[in-house]
C-alpha cells in the first residue's frame, strides 16, 4: 500500500513531463506512453524494484481504464447525427476492418512460426486493452502479451498513423478517425482527439464497434486460422 507514495507520483510526473515536452517540441515519437515506459522500466530494473510493487502503487490508474471505456459514450453521443446518417457504412467498414485486423495479425504470426498461444495473443491486438485481454483469455492466449501487442499497435498508430494517412492523402475526418480507431484503438483515439474533436469522435466510434465485433468473432475465427496453418 505504501508503494502508492512513490509509484503514482513517479508515473504522473514522467507522463506529464513527456506530454508537455511532446506538445512543445511537436514530435510524435515523444509519445507520452512510450516515454513513460522507456523511463520507468529501466528505473525499476536499476533499482531492483519488482513490477508488482510498481503496479500496486499505480493500480488506481489501471482501475480507471474501465470507466474511461464507459466515458467513450460521450463523444459517441455528441456525434449521434453523424452516426444516424451513415450507420450502415460505418458498421460495414468496422466489420471489414476488424476481420482484416484479426486475420492478418494472426496469419502473419503463425506464418512466421509463432506458437498458437502467441498467435491467439496477437489476434485481438487492434482493440482496446480491456477487450483485448478478455478476448485473448477466451481463445487461450496470454492476456499480458495481448496487452503488450495492444500497446505496441497503439503507439504505432499514435506515432505514425497520421503521417501514413497524410501520405495516402486521406483528408476526410471520418476516414481518418475510423482508420485510426480500427487500427489503434484507444491510443489512436486519444491522438485523434488531441488533433481534432470530430476525428476523435469517429475514432471512438470505430474503437467501440470494432471492440464489440472482435470480442464476438475471435472465438470462431481463431480455430479456422489455426486449422488453415495446420495446427
Amino acid at each position, binding site marked *: 500500500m505504501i508503494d502508492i507514495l512513490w509509484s503514482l507520483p513517479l508515473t504522473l510526473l514522467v507522463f506529464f513531463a513527456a506530454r508537455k515536452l511532446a506538445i512543445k517540441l511537436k514530435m510524435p515519437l515523444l509519445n507520452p506512453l512510450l516515454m513513460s515506459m522507456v523511463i520507468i522500466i529501466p528505473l525499476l530494473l536499476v533499482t531492483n524494484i519488482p513490477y508488482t510493487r510498481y503496479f500496486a502503487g499505480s493500480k488506481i490508474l*489501471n482501475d480507471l481504464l474501465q470507466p474511461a471505456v464507459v466515458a467513450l459514450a460521450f463523444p459517441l453521443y455528441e456525434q449521434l447525427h453523424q452516426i444516424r446518417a451513415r450507420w450502415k457504412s460505418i458498421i460495414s467498414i468496422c466489420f471489414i476492418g476488424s476481420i482484416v485486423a484479426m486475420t492478418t*495479425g494472426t496469419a502473419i504470426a503463425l506464418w512466421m512460426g509463432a506458437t498458437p498461444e502467441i498467435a491467439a495473443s496477437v489476434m485481438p491486438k487492434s482493440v482496446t486493452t480491456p477487450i483485448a485481454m478478455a478476448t485473448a483469455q477466451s481463445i487461450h492466449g496470454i492476456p499480458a502479451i495481448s496487452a503488450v501487442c495492444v500497446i505496441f499497435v497503439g503507439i504505432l498508430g499514435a506515432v505514425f498513423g497520421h503521417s501514413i494517412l497524410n501520405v495516402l492523402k486521406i483528408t476526410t475526418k471520418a476516414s481518418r478517425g475510423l482508420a485510426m480507431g480500427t487500427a489503434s484503438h484507444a491510443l489512436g483515439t486519444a491522438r485523434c482527439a488531441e488533433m481534432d474533436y470530430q476525428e476523435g469522435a469517429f475514432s471512438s466510434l470505430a474503437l467501440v464497434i470494432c471492440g464489440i465485433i472482435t470480442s464476438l468473432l475471435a472465438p470462431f475465427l481463431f480455430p479456422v486460422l489455426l486449422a488453415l496453418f495446420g495446427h
Partner: protein
Amino acid sequence: MNNALSLAFHYIRAFILIYLCLFAGNAISSLLPITIPGSIIGMLILFGLLSTQILPFKWVKPGCNVLIRYMALLFVPIGVGVMNYYEQLRTQFGPLVVSCLVSTIIVLLVVAYCSHYIHGDRGAVTDKAEKKND
C-alpha cells in the same frame, strides 16, 4: 468558494453516473454466455441513456472529458508490465513485432480507403447532407 464547490459537485456527479453504468454493465456481462467486457456494455448503457435524453449530457460531461483526455496515462501501469514478459517476448520477438506492424499498416490502408471510397470526399455530415442521406 461556492464555485469550487459546484465544480466539485459536477465532477463527483459525473463520476458516480459513469461508475453506475459500469457496474450495471459488469452485472449484465456476468449474466451473458459470451465474453463481452462489462465496460463495453456500460458504455452502451450510457450511450443509450444519453441518446434517449433520459440523462442530460451535462451531468456526465466533466467526468467523461477528463477520462478521455488522459486516457493514455491509464495505460502506463500495464505498459510497464512488458518488463515481466521479457523471456517470452524475446523468443517470439520476430513474429510478434512483424505481425503487429504489418497488420496495423494493412488495417489503416484498408479502412482508410474503404471509408474514403464509401464516404467520398464529403467532409463531416452537415444538416443538408444528413437530410439527403435519410
